[in-house]
């Protein structure tokens, strides 16, 4: 697309340049000038129905809606005149007429645009004494519920369903002040992007049933991170309260997910807070007792593997990572097993699923967040070829000891692996779930998961993105990379345990020679494209 011509115009006397065709509200926001709005959303086509963004323009008699007014050469916009202020106050008073003002019990309270705008620009009381309109409260689908009374009919959600998901379940029904969002009978709001309508709802009309009454938003702390639900690597904001993740919301990244994310991705924190999460180390000692001290984990695994190696040779041990580990963890894992002198290095990955394509959003078929990272660090063959070799090695007793990572969220090991692993002399498993039903394990170690790790991941399009720690680990758990580094220490490969940021420094140039940055900090919030997305494994579908 050719660069649009720049036009010069003024907002409140301030000279501003913007490409021709830009809407005034966007130019104003980019220049740092506040223009309050409801129906305008940068990811949707402007509709101009809320009338909150009215400004005065030199080319119009009446106040114009800045979200539908394109900039023009020499245009003079006024956003703070008395007319504009009066218009804003008028719109807000009218908007509150039939709004129930049930902020104390509304989930949106604290991040509600109506609240914010009324505090900033609104009247301090209402002159209406008549009863308000009543609209239905109902379920729109399995994920979203509607509080009709709170709806201000901005039509953001209906536009989302038309333009982004392309499914068109939502519509405005009735007329005038009875109009409200609804679904058609028999066609509930069931699409994989449905919860985005909740995010973009400026008020609490559409509410996520999963998050309903879970937390007050002002108590939650936000951490920018990425979703580890699939290879898209949507940029998200992890919101936690008292060290417990409550909700994940999408974060704008035009290169990856724009303003949206899928419903499934919002569930990735569930294993971390699930009741059957493994929290204790179970290290089987020589005399058959169970040691739960995390400090002994590294030596227990190291000694176990060493024992096997001494008895059957270094070829008899194997390491299996997973496509859910961060690049840093994979890097230490790779170094460790290179040090142990075994070629048996594989990685588990979840099976491919059907990719889903929406009008403006793709959900890739690859459910593994760091498959490309595994391919780059452990090698392309680790995911399939090596795994098969290891499986047959275990079955024909040539491999006697293994360290495996089973942190693939709710995915369970295939049956042939479960039976094969029982033949091992020594087995150490990093797992999210309690696997005491696998009696053969020698060491059962709790794994860390989404929202707890620092590090980086390479998404399906070859973009290196930063994971951040949102919640502190449960007190009993140590990071995997620490345990792996301690094992390296036992081998004499490493003098001290370092954080992931230091590992990134070691790893960066070794894995991607052309990488221009040296510290993980430089990845920033938006990540860096380290590989060109030539072949697109995201869209590969496996039937």
């Amino acid at each position: 697309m050719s660069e649009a011509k720049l036009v010069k115009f003024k907002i409140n006397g301030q000279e501003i340049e913007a490409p021709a065709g830009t809407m005034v509200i966007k130019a104003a926001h980019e220049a740092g000038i506040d223009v309050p709005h409801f129906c305008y959303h940068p990811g949707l086509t402007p509709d101009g129905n809320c009338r909150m963004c009215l400004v005065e323009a030199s080319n119009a008699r009446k106040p114009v809606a800045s979200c539908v007014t394109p900039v023009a050469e020499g245009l003079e916009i006024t956003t703070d005149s008395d007319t504009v202020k009066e218009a804003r106050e008028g719109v807000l008073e009218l908007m509150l007429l039939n709004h129930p003002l049930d902020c104390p019990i509304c989930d949106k309270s604290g991040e509600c645009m109506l609240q914010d705008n009324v505090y900033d620009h609104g009247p301090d009381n209402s002159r209406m004494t008549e009863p308000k309109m009543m609209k239905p409260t109902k379920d729109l689908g399995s994920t979203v519920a509607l509080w009709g009374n709170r709806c201000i009919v901005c039509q953001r959600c209906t536009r989302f369903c038309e333009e982004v998901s392309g499914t068109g379940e939502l519509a405005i029904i009735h007329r005038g002040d009875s109009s409200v969002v609804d679904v058609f009978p028999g066609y509930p709001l069931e699409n994989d992007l449905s919860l985005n309508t909740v995010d973009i709802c400026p008020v609490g009309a559409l509410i996520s049933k999963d998050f309903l009454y879970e937390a007050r938003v002002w108590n939650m702390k936000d951490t920018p991170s990425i979703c580890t639900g699939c290879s898209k690597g949507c940029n998200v904001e992890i919101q936690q309260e008292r060290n417990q993740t409550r909700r994940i919301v999408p974060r704008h990244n035009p290169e990856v997910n724009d303003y949206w994310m899928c419903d499934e991705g919002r569930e990735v924190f569930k294993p971390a807070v699930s009741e059957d999460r493994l929290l204790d180390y179970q290290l089987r000692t020589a005399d058959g007792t169970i040691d739960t001290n995390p400090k002994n984990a590294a030596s227990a695994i190291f000694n176990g593997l060493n024992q096997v190696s001494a008895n059957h040779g270094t070829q008899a041990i194997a390491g299996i990572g997973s496509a859910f580990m961060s690049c840093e963890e994979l890097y230490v894992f790779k170094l460790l097993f290179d040090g142990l002198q075994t070629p048996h290095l594989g990685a588990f990955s979840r099976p491919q699923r059907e990719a889903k394509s929406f009008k403006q959003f793709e959900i890739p078929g690859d459910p593994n967040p760091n498959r490309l990272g595994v391919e780059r660090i452990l090698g392309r063959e680790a995911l399939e070829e090596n795994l098969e070799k290891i499986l047959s090695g275990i079955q024909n007793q040539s491999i006697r000891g293994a360290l495996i990572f089973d942190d693939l969220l709710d995915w369970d090991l295939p049956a042939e692996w479960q039976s094969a692993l029982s033949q091992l002399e020594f087995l150490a498993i990093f797992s999210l779930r309690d696997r005491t039903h696998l009696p053969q394990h020698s060491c059962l170690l709790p794994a860390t998961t989404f929202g707890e790790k620092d590090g980086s991941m390479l998404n399906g399009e070859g973009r290196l993105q930063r994971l951040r720690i949102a919640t502190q680990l449960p007190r009993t758990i140590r990071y995997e990379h620490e345990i792996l580094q301690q094992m390296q220490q036992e081998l004499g490969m490493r003098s001290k345990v370092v954080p992931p940021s230091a590992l990134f420094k070691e790893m960066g140039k070794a894995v991607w020679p052309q990488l221009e940055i040296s510290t993980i900090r430089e990845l920033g919030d938006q990540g860096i494209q380290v590989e060109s997305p030539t072949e697109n494994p995201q869209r590969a579908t496996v039937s």
Partner: protein
Amino acid sequence: MAELDLSKYEKILFKHVDQEGSDTIDYYLKHGGYEGAKKAITEHRPSEVIDIVKESNLRGRGGAGFPCGVKWSFVPQNTDKPKYFVVNADESEPGTFKDRVLIERDPHSIIEGIIIGSYAIKCNVAYLYIRGELVYGYEQLVKAVKEAYDKGMLGKGLFGTDYNLDLTIHRGAGAYICGEETGLLSSLEGKRGQPKIKPPFPAVEGLFRCPTVVNNVETVCNLQHIINRGAEWFKNIGPEKGPGPKLLCVSGHVNKPGTYEVPMGINLKQLIYDVAGGVWKGNKLKAVIPGGTSAKVLKAEEVDVPCDFDSMMAIDTMLGSGAVIVMDDTTDMVDALYNIIRFYHHESCGQCTPCREGTGWLEKILKRIMAGHGRMEDIDTMLNICDRMVGKTICVLADAAAFPCSSIVTKFRSEFEAKIQQGAGYDKRIFTGGPLVQPGAVSRHNQERRKDKDTPNRISLDPELISKPSQSKVETTS
């Protein structure tokens, strides 16, 4: 102001509507029908037709009074998109019933106008959007279009040229807002009838995002006469800046309500007292709404004004759709305003906040005043709400609701104050706040049925039949 001598005025639009069979193509052809279309297509190039109409100063009869030729000239000439000509027959402004007469009594004059307009903007597909409630009119139009197709007035190769035109009639589903240009186009596209943001104007991007001209029925009926008799002749009728015949619908408290064809610029007083036979029952005139309920009201002393777009604009009201609603001195202006606002509340599409909420609020306040619970501050609140509605929405429905409200409240403020002071003692019998059909109101049909008690349709309540179920119930329980 000088009175026009209407006896010399030759009817143009309504010349044939009173005649038997005026809706058939045979009658129409016998009286010079389709000559204008034939002349336009065979003798003029499209740009010449636009020039003639521009020259004639024909202004749109839908309400805004925008010059018709100028509107046509906005259609881009060099575009590969199809163009559309849409005729707005969604006549729904309260008090307006002028297009209906043309549709039902002279449908071929509309079709002829459509041919000329479509030819002028070089489009091959025209739509006629007719109000859903006009069932008879729809049937008449369907019949007329079929006749026109049969006689080769529509379809392929009109009048021996290579010009093709297809006309589709589309029925609305009963929404006032679909009479608004862009709301009509949304509805015609199959969407919810909500007005669109202008710009882009329909002439640039309208129906199906293609250049579209939307004209009123009465506007297109003028075209053939302009082509036939020339722009000069047309300009001599009425004021030069907005000439031509005008259909005015006089309703309310007059002796002879109806649709009248008059030359543009007729004095409103002459229209009421002369043409429409004066205020009924010998009562005095109290107020006149000159252009549909969306226009600002005129007090009795203000009615000495010519009925044309500019003169009405000068006294801060509008000719609008030409619906003159006359109110005599027995009229309760609070009730009248409540009736008007109730309509706009019901018809607001709900897209823009000021209109969606404002109309509802106004109705609630007026309803409360009508019920005798008004407060003095309500009057200023209403004026303030109107102020917050005007000019702040996508279409002009908010203005249309606010203009009558602010004008009636300002001009008849004392009545509102009196009603509020009267409080709950107010006689509620003429309160229109109930259901549209008053309980107890009996239609003529039912009145006659009641007179004739032997009508078999009547359910007769036989005392024995009533008592039987209860007896059986007692038996089963015991």
